[in-house]
Structures are given as structure tokens and as C-alpha cells.
């Protein structure tokens, strides 16, 4: 695979190292001269100096034959532009962008730039996982596919506690896919009895959170 990475900060540099280690071909574009010079010692021809939002710089990096473009500069507007140009002008099939300010995520969505990675949101997700609000944790969101996987604690006295999986009035578009009990996880069948204190993983269409929450909380 040939990957073009724009932005030679910590993320870009370490990503470059990892991808090379895995045997991929990589070009890393960095626009700050001092940073470029310090990484050139290590990366040699893999590092290229220039503004990755300039078309000729992307072309010099061989953007047209890239299988993947990763935009990880510290500037969201730059990342948006790089991704747009890579995808729409140079027809790069796969793009990944970093979102620096979570408030700008809506603009990536607006312009169809996905997937995006936001360190702030990832850490928030982890905090949510450690300190769940409403007992519900989002494990995976696939908005494009309109699917999500959530984790919930089963509360004592909830409609689900003590019930067979097949008897729980799960709304259409939702499914219990796994039960975590006493440190073990297993895939339930219809006659599995859910116990208070279990953690259940549910696969569901977005928008059903409130309905399923009602089934597993008291």
C-alpha cells in the first residue's frame, strides 16, 4: 500500500514509522523547515518538504497513485482542504483525517470527509466508558451505515433482569449480541436468562437508545 501522510507532528511521524515497519510505502509531507530537517535524518527520501495543501506538493509526492491519504496537520481547515483535493481531484480512494477541534467535526461531516479521528473525542469516549452516564456506553458508531453498538449495565428490577432474551420486548432494529458476566463474554441464545449486574452489548439502529435504555434500567 502507498500512503501519503500530511503533517509531521507526533501523530504523523509515528504513523509513518509504524506503516514503514509494516512494509508499506510512505511519503510524509511537512511544511515546517526545522521539523522537516530533523525528520529527514531518520526518514531520508520518505520525508518531503512543502505545504501539503498546494497541488504541486501533493503531485510531487505522487498523490495520484496513493491508496491512502492521511491528513494530520494541526489545522482543521488544512486537513479539510487536503482531503477534499485528494479525494475529488486526485481520486484517492481512502482518506483519513484528524479533527483538532471537536467543534469543527460538523464541517468535516458537511463536506463528506470521513472517517475522522479526534483525540479529544476519543478521550471523552474513554471517560464515558469509565464513568458511564445513564449506564450506556457507545462502543461503535457507524453513522453512514446507520448502525451502532452500545454497552449497558442491566439494573436490578429492570424489565430485562431475570428475563429470557427472547422475551424482552426489544424494538425492531435492535439485538442483544453479547453478554458480559463475571469477566466472561458470550453470545446469548433466545433462552439465555439475563441477570441483574450483567453488561449487555446491543447492536441497534441510531435513535433507539431511549427505548432500549428503558428495558435495561430500573
Amino acid at each position: 500500500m502507498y500512503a501519503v501522510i500530511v503533517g509531521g507532528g507526533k501523530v504523523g511521524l509515528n504513523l509513518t514509522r509504524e506503516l514503514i515497519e509494516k512494509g508499506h510505502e510512505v511519503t510524509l509531507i511537512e511544511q515546517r523547515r526545522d521539523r522537516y530537517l530533523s525528520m529527514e535524518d531518520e526518514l531520508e527520501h520518505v520525508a518531503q518538504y512543502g505545504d501539503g495543501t498546494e497541488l504541486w506538493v501533493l503531485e510531487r509526492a505522487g498523490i495520484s497513485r496513493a491508496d491512502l491519504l492521511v491528513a494530520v496537520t494541526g489545522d482543521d481547515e488544512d486537513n479539510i482542504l487536503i482531503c477534499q483535493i485528494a479525494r475529488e481531484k486526485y481520486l484517492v480512494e481512502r482518506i483519513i483525517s484528524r479533527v483538532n477541534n471537536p467543534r469543527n467535526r460538523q464541517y468535516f461531516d458537511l463536506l463528506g470527509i470521513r472517517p475522522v479521528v479526534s483525540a479529544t473525542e476519543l478521550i471523552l469516549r474513554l471517560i464515558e466508558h469509565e464513568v458511564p452516564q445513564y449506564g450506556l456506553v457507545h462502543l461503535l458508531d457507524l453513522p453512514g451505515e446507520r448502525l451502532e453498538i452500545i454497552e449497558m449495565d442491566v439494573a436490578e428490577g429492570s424489565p430485562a433482569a431475570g428475563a429470557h432474551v427472547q422475551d424482552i420486548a426489544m424494538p425492531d432494529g435492535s439485538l442483544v449480541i453479547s453478554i458480559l458476566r463475571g469477566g466472561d463474554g458470550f453470545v446469548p441464545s433466545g433462552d439465555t436468562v439475563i441477570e441483574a449486574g450483567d453488561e449487555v452489548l446491543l447492536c441497534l439502529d441510531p435513535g433507539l437508545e431511549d427505548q432500549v435504555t428503558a428495558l435495561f434500567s430500573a
Partner: protein
Amino acid sequence: MSFILIVGAGRVGSSVARSMLASGHEVSVLDEDPLSHERLDAGQATTWEDAGGRFTIGHALEVDALREAGIEQADVFVASTDGDNTNLTVAQIAQKMFEVPRVIARVMDPARAEWYAGQGLSTICPTRYAVEMFEQELAGV
């Protein structure tokens, strides 16, 4: 009379803002630097507000600031900050999120200006004009 929102009031943005106001348009300016407000006032008989202009402090990509500056009522949106990529991004936000009927972005890089123009965005590239003028001046050399 149109309502014109200008984001980025450097030398170009502030001059365009003043001339549009003088032509009788309603003009609102958004800039993150309070100094650009002074630039609007400099050398004028009245302050920008007394002349009828609006000024909002905020960053081009802040939705709240764009709303406060009146983007939802704007007939024309001008992106003239000093960053090409900021201008191209906020111009597309004005076009796609707020459906402003006329959107113009200043883009210093001719290559980017040309490509985005091909994507249906009005772009103005000062660099291209400068090159053309140099070429004219140097034509007889």
C-alpha cells in the same frame, strides 16, 4: 440593496466593506482581531457603526460567530481572511450549511483558486492579477 457579510477585514476585506457600505448595502464584518475594527474606522469621518456598519469579533469557523454576524440573512458572503484554506472552508460552509446565494472567496494560490472555481465556487486570486500586471509592465522590456 443587499446584505453582505465579509469575513476577514484585513486591507482587502475592510476596503471592500467600506465601499460596499458607501454604495448603500447593508454590511456586516466578522474578524477575530479587534484591531481590524480600527482599520475600518481609520481616516473616516464617522465610526464604522455610526456609518451603519456591523462588526462582530469571532473566528471564521465558529458557527455562533457566523450567526451573530448575520450569515442566515446574508445575500452575499465574502471570505477574505489571510488564510486560503480558511477562506475555502468557510465559503463552502456558507454555501452548503447556510445556503447563502452568492459566495466569493479570496484565494492567493492560483492553483487552488482555479480548481475550486471549477468546483462551482467563486474565487478571486490576487496573485494571478499581480502576475498579469507584472507581465504587462514587462512586456516592452
